């Protein structure tokens, strides 16, 4: 059993390193999937034709999803955090004896 785990670990390790080598460089021209999400850049006019960068103006497409397209979700998450902190504050508040 230990041998199987070790072999699986080694295979996974090699796979991760291989994918790290094969990944395209930071800022390289995007693949087709990026074209659909981030948008299509027209290099002659210097403007984005459609997509997330054109609509939100943020380079980070993840942030544009989290704070713009799914902003309600983030508001709910902040509300969950607020409620949890209010609960902790209520539980551990200082009680004055006098």
């Amino acid at each position, binding site marked *: 059993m230990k041998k199987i785990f070790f072999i699986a670990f080694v295979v996974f390790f090699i796979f991760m390193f291989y994918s790290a080598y094969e990944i395209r460089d930071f*800022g390289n021209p995007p693949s087709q999937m990026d074209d659909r999400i981030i948008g299509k*850049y027209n*290099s002659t006019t*210097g*403007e*984005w034709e459609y997509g997330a*960068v*054109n*609509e*939100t*103006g*943020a*380079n*980070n497409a*993840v*942030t*544009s999803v*989290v*704070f*713009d397209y799914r*902003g*309600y979700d*983030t*508001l709910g*998450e*902040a509300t969950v*955090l*607020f409620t*949890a*902190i209010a609960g*902790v*504050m209520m539980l*551990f508040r200082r009680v004055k004896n006098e």
Partner: protein
Amino acid sequence: MNEERMSVIVQTIASILFPIILIFSFYIIMHGHLTPGGGFQGGAVGASAVALLIVAFGARYVENKMREENLSAFESVGGLVFVIVSILGIFVATTFLTNFLVGEPLFGIIPKWGVSPLNSGGVLPILNIAVGMKVIGGLASVVLMLAIASKEGEK
């Protein structure tokens, strides 16, 4: 000598590291719309700086320096800014949470290929800063309250 404090070495290293960690946290929050990270992640980093201070100096000392009420107020201001900016979207533009600053010259320039200007993104940087304030204040006050409560429980 206070029992809660750790040794002088730990205190010195903590007081050197504290502003550096805070600056890194502010960097992550400010560049949330350009690089990986954002309000939540940067806020967690900033709260870990406060946790480092609590470990090194003890909960009582940190509570005397930064009142827990101030941290809670900081957190509430962050939540208020988020909601106000969201509701402004109804009045300025069309719906709740509209990115109404995109295309404006001040905050909303749309970046060209390969450049990442800081004043892009419309309301996204403002919301990032609001969430960052919220998470820094909230997590730091929770860690502080839990540390104080565990110290009082030992007695």
